[in-house]
Every structure is written in structure tokens, then in C-alpha cells.
């Protein structure tokens, strides 16, 4: 008789409450953005035209690569030095994203696209700002997780490291929709 492997919740169960809660909240933001978009498409097209798609795709590739490093790190926990190097790679890609985002914000502000300039600008700064806050928290979590990866003493430590990695993947996941909605779609 062949046995099917037991199914397991990755990380701590509590992190999934955070993840699904965040996904639900951001989904509401995205649908609200879509509703404003369809009521004034010309204004939103003009706002999108001010964004730099090159920075958008570069940030997408940085976050995807960062997630790759973090996913590989969680699979290499039996080799602490390798796991720590991979977590560091993930953090550096995340820092690269942060630097590019700040450069983009500064350029938009210099062009006159401020928080009060249009509904598109409000959505752009609000959504990317909240995502940026998630990114900063994620970087701090990755730093803690990286330290933990060097001294795993109990199975719970592995679950904590996996939970930190899951939060980082959430940051990537949210950016997938932000990039599509803010930079790419033009109904």
C-alpha cells in the first residue's frame, strides 16, 4: 500500500492569518483603485504615463530574485553558512528595490506628481507607500531570520525562519498586482 506524504502548513499557522488578512486588505485597495480608474480613465492614463516602466520592471526582477534567494535559503537550513549567504542575497535585492523606489518617488515629486495632485497620485503614493512599509518590515524580519539560521536549536526555530520567509514572499506577491495595476494595465 503506497502512503501519501503528510501535508504540512508551511511556517507557523499564525503567519497565514497575517498573509491572508493582508491579501484581503490589499484586494480591497486594488478593487477601489479599479473603480476610480473606470470612472476617469483619461486621468489615470495621464498619471500612468508619468511613471517609469523601466524602474517598475527592474523592481519586479529584483523582488523575484530576492524571493528566489529566500526560498533557496529555507531549503538550505541544514547548511547554515549557505543559508545565511542566501538570506543576505535576498536582503541585498530587497535593498536594491528600496533604493530604486526612493529614486522613483523623488523623480515623480520633482515632476510635480504629489500626494494632492490627482486621485491617481494618491493611489500611487498610498499603495506603493504601504507596500514600502511592508518591504522595510520584511527586511528587518530577514535580518532576524538570517541570524537565527546560524543557530537552529529546535524544530520551532525552523518554523520561525519559514514564517519570516513567508512574510517576504508576501511582499513579492503584493508587488505582482501593484506592478500590473499601476504600470501595465490600460483598459
Amino acid at each position, binding site marked *: 500500500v503506497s502512503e501519501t*506524504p503528510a*501535508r*504540512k*502548513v*508551511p511556517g507557523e499557522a499564525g503567519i*497565514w492569518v497575517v498573509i*491572508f488578512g493582508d*491579501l*484581503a486588505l490589499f*484586494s480591497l485597495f*486594488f*478593487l477601489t483603485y*479599479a*473603480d476610480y*480608474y*473606470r*470612472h*476617469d*480613465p483619461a486621468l489615470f492614463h495621464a498619471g500612468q504615463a508619468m511613471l517609469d*516602466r523601466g524602474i*517598475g*520592471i527592474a523592481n*519586479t*526582477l529584483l523582488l*523575484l*530574485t530576492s*524571493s*528566489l534567494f*529566500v*526560498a*533557496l535559503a529555507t*531549503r*538550505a537550513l541544514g547548511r547554515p553558512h549557505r543559508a545565511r549567504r542566501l538570506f543576505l542575497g535576498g536582503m541585498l535585492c530587497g535593498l536594491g528595490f528600496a533604493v530604486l523606489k526612493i529614486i522613483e518617488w523623488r523623480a515623480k515629486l520633482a515632476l510635480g506628481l504629489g500626494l494632492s495632485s490627482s486621485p491617481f497620485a494618491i493611489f500611487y503614493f498610498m499603495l506603493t507607500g504601504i507596500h514600502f512599509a511592508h518591504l522595510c518590515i520584511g527586511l528587518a524580519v530577514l535580518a532576524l531570520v538570517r541570524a537565527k539560521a546560524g543557530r537552529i536549536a529546535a524544530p520551532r526555530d525552523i518554523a520561525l525562519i*519559514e514564517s519570516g520567509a*513567508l512574510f517576504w*514572499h508576501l511582499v*513579492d*506577491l503584493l508587488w*505582482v*498586482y501593484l*506592478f*500590473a*495595476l499601476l*504600470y*501595465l*494595465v*490600460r*483598459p
Partner: protein
Amino acid sequence: MTTRPTVIAWAALVALSLVSFGWASGVRGAATAFVLSIAAAKALTIGWRFMDLSGAPRSMQWIFAGWALSLSAALTVWLHLPPSL
């Protein structure tokens, strides 16, 4: 645990991102549906391969897949509703 499926998933995610980036300047209506479909495919790949949902309980898989697919579908429909509605 082998790392090859994770690296393949990353390569697929990069390819999907570049394709959707290229398509975004195409025909507007079709491009929106296409870009949001790709977003759903990317979300599912991140969930399955990076977040390890492939080995998670079925209920979690259904919730996650339901979220990714329904969000993309809802956004596509919503963005194409006439402003008068």
C-alpha cells in the same frame, strides 16, 4: 530538498514578467486581461513554489488559488465596466 524546481519557477516568473511588460503596450482591452491573467499565474507560482503551498493542506491551496484567480477576474471585469454603472 532539490532546488531545481525553485530555480525553474523563478525563471518562469521572470519570463512571465517580461512577456507581460512587452504586451502592456499592445491592444488595450486584450492587454489588460492578459496582464492580469499573467499576474494570477505569477501569484500561483510564488504561492506553490516559493511559499511551499504545493505540500500544504488542500483547504489552504483552494483559498490561495481562489484568491489569486478571483482577484484577477474581478479586476478585469471591474476595469471594463462602463463608467455609468
